[in-house]
């Protein structure tokens, strides 16, 4: 239960009749067929792509399906994770199998070290910007290289999450010790004797050095700028020091038409600097960027500051467990004191099918994954950014170069919190 749930007070009845009906249908189906359901009131409720990894349900080497395109997320743990439609879902339930054309393989190698203030969200946005929305159609993208190894598991989850925006069938990263440590001890993780057996199998999974791929793309991250999407698909993205491109410079008539339409929808003029775009809404949440480390990074920007006048800012944890852990660290107080709303878990403003949405013409800095027309609500305008860019944008009412933003030390974030 994630897409359609309200993120307000859980003691109140669900006001939207259609959501309520859909939630009841799922509850009844789960009871009838004997499935575990992390329902609206469960302490483990959350976005499927957040709770799978955090509960130890997503493990290396398994084939995992979900009726949602962002299922590629789970590939960060070395699972073959496929987003599927309803008919395919029915087939999985009935047969425990799926018909699949063997996908091609694309190796994306990430090298170098990210500058201060630049994150794995900026990495995946820049990858999509270069390969395009259809660049990886028909492929499983395997992310590798020393920069991928250096990322934490949660940073990797952001990268595999958005591979679908480059058209990928799914994404995968060879599992390593960081992954095993992330899973170990979580609620459904293998335990006892099973743990040793699992580890042995998982350590046999990583791709061989010199493995063959159908295509390759290499990225050096050392000079990467913070990225901000300006258009109506995730490939329409620019560095924070750049400006909105002009349709007159587009390579083809079709590209010029797409660009014109995107700028009209977004209410932006060619040549406008990214840092001059004013914002009225900030959304920190979604299966891309609502894990504990994402909220911690945002809090490092926010602590001791105030949300800019006229900006509505929301923080929506990716799961109730993330929410609980963040509250134990005192992150909720940092956000609330700065003027953010601190909400219960759900897909929230990433997708306009619950109460959290943009009104026509509203402009949002969002840590989510899609800036499609009407995605965050009819007429809403979305700019995809990292959690620290979203946090900084909330404080300034516009985008700023996060390489210049001071981040509070994690140790000083929450005196008296769990880590104190």
């Amino acid at each position, binding site marked *: 239960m994630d897409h359609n749930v309200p993120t307000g007070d859980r003691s109140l009845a669900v006001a939207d009749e259609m959501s309520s009906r859909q939630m009841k249908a799922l509850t009844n189906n789960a009871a009838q067929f004997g499935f575990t359901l992390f329902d609206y009131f469960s302490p483990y409720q959350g976005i499927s792509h957040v709770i799978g990894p955090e509960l130890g349900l997503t493990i290396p080497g398994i084939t995992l399906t979900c009726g*949602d395109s962002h299922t590629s997320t789970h590939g960060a743990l070395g699972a073959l994770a496929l987003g599927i439609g309803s008919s395919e879902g029915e087939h999985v339930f009935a047969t425990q199998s799926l018909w699949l054309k063997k996908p091609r393989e694309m190796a994306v190698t990430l090298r170098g070290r990210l500058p201060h203030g630049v994150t794995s969200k900026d990495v995946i946005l820049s990858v999509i910007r270069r390969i395009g929305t259809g660049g990886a159609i028909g492929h499983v993208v395997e992310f590798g290289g020393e920069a991928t190894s250096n990322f934490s598991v949660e940073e990797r989850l952001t990268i595999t999450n958005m591979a679908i925006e480059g058209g990928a069938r799914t994404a995968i990263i060879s599992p390593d010790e960081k992954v095993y440590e992330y899973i170990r001890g979580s609620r459904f993780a293998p335990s006892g004797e099973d743990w040793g057996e699992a580890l042995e199998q998982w350590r046999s999974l990583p791709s061989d050095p010199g493995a063959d791929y159908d295509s390759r793309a290499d990225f050096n991250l050392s000079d990467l700028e913070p990225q901000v999407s300006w258009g109506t*698909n995730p490939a329409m993205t620019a560095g924070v020091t750049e400006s909105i491109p002009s349709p007159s410079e587009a390579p083809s008539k079709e590209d010029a038409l797409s660009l014109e339409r995107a700028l009209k929808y977004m209410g932006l003029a060619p040549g406008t600097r990214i840092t001059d775009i004013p914002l009225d809404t900030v959304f920190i949440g979604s299966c891309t960027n609502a894990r504990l480390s994402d909220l911690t990074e945002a809090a490092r920007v926010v602590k001791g500051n105030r949300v800019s006048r006229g900006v509505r800012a929301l923080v929506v944890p990716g799961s109730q467990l993330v929410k609980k852990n963040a509250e134990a660290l005192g992150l909720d107080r940092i956000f609330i004191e700065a003027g953010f709303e601190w909400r219960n878990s759900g897909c929230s403003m990433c997708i306009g099918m619950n109460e959290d949405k943009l009104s026509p013409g509203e402009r949002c800095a969002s840590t989510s994954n899609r800036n499609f027309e009407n995605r965050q609500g009819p007429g809403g305008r979305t700019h995809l950014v990292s959690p620290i860019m979203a946090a900084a944008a909330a404080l300034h009412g516009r985008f700023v170069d996060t390489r210049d933003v001071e981040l509070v030390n994690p140790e000083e974030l929450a005196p008296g919190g769990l880590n104190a």
Partner: protein
Amino acid sequence: MPEPLREVIGKVCPLEADDVDTDQIFPAQFLKVIERRGLERYLFYGLRHDEKGNVHGRFVLDRAAFRGARILVAGKNFGIGSSRENAVWALADFGIRCVIASSFGDIFYNNASKNGLLCVRLPNQKVIDLRERAASADLTLSVDLASQTISDGKTTLAFEVEPYIKERLLKGMDDVAFTLENYEAEISEYERRIPRFVIPGNPSSP
């Protein structure tokens, strides 16, 4: 179970746009509808309706010249984004039986094949040519799946389609029945060999 699909003969509607995502085809606010039928009213909702929710008639599928079209010719990357099968159901409910584009989102392409909607990939320039012809004068095409050809009565174009998708569409196959009839023993055998640690359900103490 879908109806067998051998050929689609019908009027062509041009949709001059690349990157038509499934949020455009079937907006998220209608995903809470749990029925599978009657979804045509939500098709391209944001593009077809004014602020008051009335059909304004300016969207290409609503123009008199293209009423009753059965074939949609789009651009690059049709059906990218969300996995919502509602996008396919809504197109089918509207009467579209075939979409021609230079590339498709993978999940949309698979979903279409389960619902008797034929997706045809052609080189980008051929797609643009067809679109321009349909925009300037009435164009009726015959898309024949068995011979993998598109014809306007004078000239013929060939297209590629995956054999397994072709077979399923031609026969209107029920995938679940097909799998269980032919592979149930293999699936059970595989399940017997799965290590115990893979099966969740032994939660560690909370």
